[in-house]
């Protein structure tokens, strides 16, 4: 890989942080980080005139995210190949934690409306785990990229 690709990767990291920031802002504006407010978003809130979400409605919301999360995670995580940490155990733990958290971030709303309201904690925590771990991957990337000997 050529030295010049570092530029693309570094800018891509900045875009990723911007995307995460916009994701946090949307989550706060639409769903909310308060458990009761977030629950109201899914099961409805009569006082705020919020209608309960249906399975079809949630599916419509999550559809672009299934592909979006997958593509973003694949691109960001595959950069770990170029880092000095690629064979470390904690990188594997990081990878699987990110993939599992993104799965529950996308699909936990179905558990909330179909099984139990308790899954709202899973929704909020998986969101925070994903949002926190991606910058850690980017940090590992920044930490390694300066030391990699490119062709």
């Amino acid at each position: 890989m050529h030295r010049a690709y570092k530029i693309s990767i570094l800018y891509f990291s900045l875009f990723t942080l911007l995307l995460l920031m916009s994701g946090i802002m949307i989550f706060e504006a639409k769903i909310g980080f308060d458990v009761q407010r977030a629950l109201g978003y899914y099961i409805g809130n009569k006082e705020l005139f919020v209608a309960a979400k249906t399975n079809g409605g949630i599916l419509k919301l999550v559809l672009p995210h299934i592909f979006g999360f997958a593509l973003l995670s694949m691109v960001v995580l595959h950069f770990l190949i170029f880092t000095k940490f690629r064979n470390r155990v904690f990188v594997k733990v990081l990878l699987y934690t990110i993939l599992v958290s993104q799965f529950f971030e996308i699909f936990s709303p179905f558990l909330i409306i179909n099984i139990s309201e308790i899954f709202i904690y899973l929704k909020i925590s998986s969101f925070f785990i994903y949002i926190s771990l991606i910058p850690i991957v980017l940090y590992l990337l920044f930490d390694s990229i300066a030391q990699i000997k490119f062709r």
Partner: protein
Amino acid sequence: MKFTLIKDLKQDSVMKPILSGLLFFIILYLVSDIFVKDLGFGISVHTIKLTLFGSEEEFLDPITQASFLEFWHVEIFFIMMIVFTLSTIFIRVSNASKSAIVIVNLMMISSIISLISLPFAYFFSSEFINIYVATFFIWHILALFCAFYSLKRLHYA
């Protein structure tokens, strides 16, 4: 990213048409993006102001915060994927020349500034719309240049 490891792209009978197709569709996307923005969000300072803040005289409602954030979120995702893919191809076919690096930097910086100036315009000051419009066209022009140049290098250089 496999194409970054192939020695001679122009002689590669599989990778060459794949990259050409990708570049062709990126060009179509960039041109279509300008037309779609013109029809919806706006590409001039006046039309973007109307979209973001509405107009009592013209009975236009401003965009809601949730809709604006969703629009911004989707924009970031698409732009990051396009400029990243395009920059890697452009760097590869231009043999990472100094001028290519400068162009990639300008394209990346202008696209990031355009994305950052959008929420600044919505939440803080409408003056940032000027920056958004200028950088929107700068990064589109540079991206189109990178795409056309890459196609030319793949086929004629």
